[in-house]
């Protein structure tokens, strides 16, 4: 019993020692630094590993792949493994291609639907520009890096996202994100090998290969 209490105490101590909440003015300064850095190099690419804990699944689902991002809202995600897929968004449309099934889903963005809220949550971690307009933000210093806690302001976002946690390294690169949804689902993504090299525009366009069955699950 004593050991357990001691362990909890030490854990808390360590935790407090590492997490120093930032004052609102410091949060603003931090976001300004992030904005300047992103403005200098508005694109990024990185490898990622993802773990989804979902209410409808008994076990978490793990996957890995590579992501490309161009500020403010273009991105591409390629998933490796048993069920490979490619997700591409040019800001107006979102494609999800399943080569194994020779099928693709096409979604139109900008309708202020739940999909837009979900995409906004994904791109927020990679973009972090003007996030304070969409989210209430708190931040803390952890070691050499920072942790941002984002909670959405708009009701449409709240339906999709309860809390978004972003861990940044000392160079303000995203290391890890954790998305908590209102139904309890949780997605943890860890980024590595981040690069800020230029990305060709074609990377954010998608044309389904011949023979692909295209569907529009939420309508055109």
């Amino acid at each position: 019993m004593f050991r357990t209490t001691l362990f909890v105490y030490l854990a808390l101590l360590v935790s407090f020692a590492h997490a120093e909440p930032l004052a609102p003015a410091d949060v603003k300064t931090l976001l300004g630094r992030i904005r300047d850095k992103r403005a200098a190099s508005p694109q990024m690419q990185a490898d990622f590993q993802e773990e989804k804990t979902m209410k409808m699944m008994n076990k978490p689902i793990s996957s890995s792949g590579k992501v490309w991002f161009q500020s403010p809202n273009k991105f591409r995600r390629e998933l490796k493994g048993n069920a490979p897929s490619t997700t591409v968004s040019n800001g107006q449309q979102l494609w999800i291609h399943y080569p194994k099934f020779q099928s693709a889903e096409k979604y139109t963005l900008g309708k202020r639907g739940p999909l837009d809220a979900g995409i906004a949550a994904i791109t927020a971690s990679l973009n972090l520009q003007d996030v304070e307009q969409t989210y209430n933000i708190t931040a803390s210093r952890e070691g050499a890096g920072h942790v941002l806690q984002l909670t959405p302001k708009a009701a449409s976002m709240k339906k999709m996202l309860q809390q978004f946690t972003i861990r940044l390294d000392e160079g303000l690169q995203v290391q890890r994100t954790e998305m908590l949804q209102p139904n309890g689902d949780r997605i943890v993504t860890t980024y590595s090998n981040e690069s800020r090299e230029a990305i060709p525009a074609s990377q954010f366009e998608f044309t389904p290969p011949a023979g692909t069955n295209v569907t529009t699950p939420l309508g055109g």
Partner: protein
Amino acid sequence: MPLHSTVSRLVTQRRGAVWLAVAAMFAVSLLILITRMKLDTEVLNLLPNGFESVEGLKLYNRDFAQVRELTFALVCKPEDVDKLEDFAPEFAESLRQQPWATRVLAGSPLETPEGVRDLQAIAVPLLLNLEPTAFAETISVLQPDKLRERLRRLREEIEAGSPRPQIELQLDPLGVVAPALKPFAGNAAVEEGQPLTSPDRTMRVFLVVTNQPTTGAFDAQKLMEDVNAFRAKARETWDGGPLEVLVTGRSAYVSEISLSMRHDIVVTIFGSVFLVGGVFYAGFRRWLPLLGMGFSLLLCCVVSLAAGLLIFGELNMVTVGFCAILIGLGVDFAILVFGRYQQARDDGLDHAGGVDEAIRNLGRPVFFGALTTAVGFLALLLSNSPGFTQLGVLVAIGIFLAGLFTLSIFFLFIPAKSRPLHGDWMFAGVKSYVRWAVRNPGRMLAVSTPILLLLALIAVLPKPPLIFDASTKSMEPKSSDAGYALHTIMGKMPMRWEPAIGIVRASHPQQLHDYWQQVAAHWATLQESGKIKSFSTPAALALSPNRARANREALARIDLAASRTALEEAVAAEGFSPETFSSGFTLLDELGRAAQPNAELPDWRTQLPTTSSWWFLVDRYFAHDPLLTTGFVTTNAPIDHAQKEMLTREMAVTGVPMTLSGWSFTLADLIPWSHRQLIVISAFMAVFEIGLLALLYRDWRLWLIHIATLALAVTAMIATMKLMQIPLNLLNVLAFRLVLAVGVDYGIYVILVWQKARQLEHDVAGVIKPVILAGLTAVAGFGALGLANNPTLGGLGIACAIGIFWSLAATVFFALPAAAAAEPKIWREETT
């Protein structure tokens, strides 16, 4: 003894008996009004009978639940859109808590767990209603291999990050609900075009079905009192800028219209009395005759309303304008009669002699005046509109009573001893004008004729056009909150307009199903060919007993136990949680029951909770009687007459009895009726009056002058409406015949007197002054209707006021000099 002598003896020598008779008449009429008063506030009763579209609209308003539906809208400033998004669920919840709210729709039912659950509850009957081939294809997904394959794929899609599997599994774990809804979704195009949030996000719309006990005016008022109290409090927790809480719907309109009836009655009666009294006093400077005139006309109104109640059983809202019209018209008689009486007294006759002289001289013109006016109003019977029929009959009764009472009861208020009228500037002015016009008719005509001809030219030329407004807005009350709410909602939503509706009644469910299958197939071809924009029918919900039977037989051949086992294994193998598929297992159980040939299928109406948002969709299509249904067609442009003709031609399906209707459709349908009112019935009136005048004058020159006067007055009225951009609507076209009926009287008084006159000052100048006064009071009386909130009444009043003004002007400035030119008479100065 001549009749005029008998009447004059009664009112001068048997005053007590006459007063007793008046009191008895008044008491009986009041008793009838108090005990039998019933007001008909149904605006549709102003539209003519005999039109299928009108009958369809009445049916739709009476039998479909939308009658009890209110539409709320929250409208905020652009900077508050996020706050509105947060506030909307709170507002919806407050609405649900209201004792008058039965159910509330605040968004797509599919976005709520309750909406999804309700839909799953009615999946089996919808599934069994699929066309047998589609049913077989759908049900094939329950084969064990296909179930396993589907779940594997769903898991892989989840891994890929697709949002689709989550949405699909939430609504349809087995994969059979979505195909069952396919016919339904395909038909819901109209609803998809009506989102509950405006594109700029500054407006949120909420639909509420209320528990208003009846659709009557008093229940609507009571409901709206509660609703308005709720609206006043609804903003309490809003922390943004200005927020409008709007509400519209039938109850909102009915409440406003019925409350505005009270306003209209008070404003138009007091307006008429004030204006008419003012003109009378300015002309005669006597109070007692004014009181007598007011009393006589009040008695006319009370007796006529009582008679109207006895005849019709209830009074339509448009008849509230009756009193103002009657005062405007009846005052003519009183002014003429008193003018003649005063003239006789000034000539030295005593009270009884003056009364006798007035009745003897004016009995015939008043009779003919009352006859032409009564016939003019009785012509409203030809309008076929219940409301206007009542108005016509009431005014016809009232105008006869007005003639009768002003030639009898009116004299009870005139004192036997009266001083002569000194310094009558009006009479002096009129006399000067008459003297000049009679001596120089050519010069007067040289001024008046070109003006009237110019106006006639403007009337017949195509430009500027006479505006004809057949829109639904032309029927709305002025400054209506419900109207403002409706137009704000329509303005903020994507371009849309009211659809045409097709009402279908069947004698049994299979017939209803077959009818809608045919209609849906036909309308789909219309949509493909671009003739209509979209359509929506209850085809998916019109269940077919024959299909259900055939599909149940097919279902019985499926091994549902094997499906269940395969599903359990696949759920475990793919790592899904069993809760995700609980509704799927329930559905399998229900399908198992439906597969048993003797099991009774539950009625989907009883499966759907009364609070379910899906009822908003169901009630849109189904009346209280489930065999009475409606479908909707949205056109490519707002429905005008050409669109209406096309829809009449194209929407109909051979072998399916269908009533086409809708507000815009009906108003477009009524345009020919309205034109017929304007042209044919006015022409009929003109022919009647032309014959009557020929009989009266027996002098073709005077007859021709009168006809020309009437024609110039009507064309001047049209020109004025063109120049002042006063629109005609479906109902104020009736003003033309009223103007003809009233305007002809002025001509009769002047021309008939000219024809018989021996002393011009007495006979002509003596009648012109009362005619001018009568004309001005009629203009004032009708003009007072312009104060009414009811646009029908207001429009009718303004149009009549313009027409009567021109009738008066044409009589005084054209008919008189023309008669003087045609049959010259010598002016002799008797009194100067």
